[in-house]
């Protein structure tokens, strides 16, 4: 009986580990390293390598269409100082957008997403964009994070000029201003 129990436990553990590890790797995109000089990570789900299978699985598993070919998809879960992005903090997303035909920024938690794109955002005279991510209304460009818990910021560049030469564009900064 004891032998049967231990054998079953071993098989069940193997099965669970296989399923959970696949789920974890897709959900957390743990195989993607931050790009040089910051917390942004670039996701390339349309490649032909094994990693692309996990990255496209990240979207498909959630019932989402993977990003369009020719777009560049960046995500971050930390601010510039390495702090986790939390819903109870006010965060500033600021800087110049890379040369691109269209861009899209979102603050995304498990079941919520608020987004802003090139057609909706107000640009400063300097050419910079400042987007406040806060649970309280803020004048100007504003994204609402989840009330509690952590979230991720996504930046999508559509038909990016920098895509052609494969360089890493200079991306806006993300700073925590204060927490409640």
């Amino acid at each position, binding site marked *: 009986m004891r032998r049967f129990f*231990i*054998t079953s436990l*071993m*098989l069940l*553990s*193997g*099965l*669970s*580990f*296989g*399923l959970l*590890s*696949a*789920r974890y790797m*897709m959900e957390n995109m743990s195989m993607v390293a931050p790009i040089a000089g910051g917390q942004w990570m670039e996701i390339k789900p*349309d490649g032909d390598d094994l990693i692309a*299978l*996990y990255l*496209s*699985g990240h*979207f*498909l*598993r*959630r*019932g*989402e*269409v*993977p*990003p*369009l*070919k*020719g*777009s560049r*998809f960046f995500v971050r879960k930390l601010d510039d100082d390495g702090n986790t992005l939390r819903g109870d903090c006010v965060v500033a997303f600021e800087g110049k957008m890379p040369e691109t*035909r*269209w861009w*899209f920024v*979102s603050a*995304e938690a498990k079941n919520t*997403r608020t*987004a*802003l*794109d*090139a*057609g*909706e955002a107000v640009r400063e005279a300097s050419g910079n964009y400042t987007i406040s991510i806060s649970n309280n209304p803020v004048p100007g460009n504003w994204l609402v994070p989840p009330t509690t818990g952590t979230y991720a910021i*996504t930046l*999508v560049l*559509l*038909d990016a000029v920098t895509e052609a030469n494969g360089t890493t564009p200079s991306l806006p900064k993300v700073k925590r201003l204060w927490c409640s």
Partner: protein
Amino acid sequence: MMNRYPFWFFTSVVLAVLAHVYYVLFVPSRSFNHAIDLALADKPVNSFVLLDPATHMKLMPFTTASHLVGICKFDTTAGNIRVGAKMPEGFWNFAVYSLRGKQVYAINDKQADTNAFSVLLSKSEGVIGQALGLGEDVLDVSTDDLGWRIALPDAQGLAILWFAVPDPLLRAKAIEDMQQSRCAKSDG
């Protein structure tokens, strides 16, 4: 204890690998198909639908409520499908995805150089084509007298038209244009 159960330990490792591979290969595409079916619940296959903002924002993580997204779930089993697209002036993208979520074809307004075009979707034929289909790359893109012809590795898929509305004042006209798009069985 491991000395007493080396075979079962090895079996559990193999099982872990198999479960991992199964999950990576099959679970995401099943979830994706389920989401597509939910979004197009009462819409027939081979028809063009302009999605409401809540639905397209859920399906496409890079869209906002101001964007316009039209979708056609096609099935070429019974014959070729022709997508006749009418797009507004501005930045748009046309993409074809397999039901496994792989993007097999894409074109935007700059590349197309026209806002009205037609794409004939057909299933590739022949043993070599079927074998190449495992790679899920688009097998053939050629032009016919009405537009492009795409031979696809899978019989079923999604044709997606996306448009970034540059100004809210242009939205009504953009909807009017995109609603003229068609997706239907073709004799060609």
